[in-house]
């Protein structure tokens, strides 16, 4: 028995070894990012880069896994590293305490096998999609607002975000709805599931599709784009 015994046999030993040799860049260590990093680390992705220029404040406590009362005022990326050392010390987690911008995006994302969008800004998602595409790196998109969420897998060369956001700027409806504890955890789970399938090269992906989730009405719908 080892720490990955329960990963098998949904993953073969070879696939577990593949994950150990992969590197994933997670942009945002808040609601989605905290859970995404946790799950990537527990399943055994070998290298994770955790990117966030923010620090925890009290309003993060309702949903952000990495935030605790003792972490208020501390950096989100550094906290991700501190937690991963306790959760899975085999994982090499590199914290980047910076916000993703036009200027730094290429340098931050370059060299990874996959990037996960755990951002809270529509505008920055477009920057991420552009650099991921330029670098030939698949991107797992996720977004939440209150009871609602959406997930997709964006392959390089696909300008998917332009089809689901007619306006590139501003906030979505999360600005008025807020975000509860459960929507980030759900959407993050779906993102990590997509990430694992991309990394092992097996399973059906959401590329060219958008999974739309409405937890208030229990609607789960996959729309083709």
């Amino acid at each position: 028995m080892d720490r990955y015994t329960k990963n098998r046999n949904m993953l073969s030993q070879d696939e577990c070894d593949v994950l150990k040799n992969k590197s994933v860049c997670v942009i945002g260590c808040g609601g989605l990012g905290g859970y995404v990093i946790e799950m990537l680390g527990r399943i055994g992705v070998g290298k994770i880069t955790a990117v966030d220029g923010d620090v925890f404040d009290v309003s993060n406590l309702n949903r952000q896994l990495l935030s605790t009362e003792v972490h208020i005022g501390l950096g989100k990326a550094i906290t991700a590293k501190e937690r991963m050392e306790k959760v899975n010390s085999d994982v090499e987690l590199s914290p980047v305490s910076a916000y993703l911008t036009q200027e730094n995006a290429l340098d931050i994302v370059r060299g990874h096998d996959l990037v996960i969008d755990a951002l809270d800004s529509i505008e920055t998602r477009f920057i991420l999609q552009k650099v991921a595409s330029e670098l030939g790196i698949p991107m797992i998109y996720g977004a939440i607002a209150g009871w609602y969420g959406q997930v997709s897998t964006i392959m390089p060369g696909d300008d998917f975000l332009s089809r689901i956001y007619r306006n590139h700027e501003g906030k979505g409806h999360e600005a008025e709805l807020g975000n509860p504890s459960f929507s980030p955890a759900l959407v993050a789970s779906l993102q990590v599931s997509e990430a694992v399938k991309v990394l092992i090269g097996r399973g059906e992906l959401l590329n060219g599709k958008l999974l739309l989730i409405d937890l208030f009405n229990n609607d789960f719908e996959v729309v083709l784009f």
Partner: protein
Amino acid sequence: MEFKVRLFATLRKDRGREVMVELQEEQTARAIINQLQIDEKDVAILMINGRDGLLDTKLVEGDIVSIFPPVGGG
């Protein structure tokens, strides 16, 4: 002409999941959002018969229009 309009997330508030909208002939999808008093900036995704559509797309009898608001949190 009458069109079925499917609404998602916050757009359902005070409108419901599905509404029927009556329009004159030769109207576009924009006329639907105007009639339902949906702000254009709240239309992130517009689908006509399950395919990506535009506000300026002319509708024909039987078209089903789906409208999704922007969701951008993380």
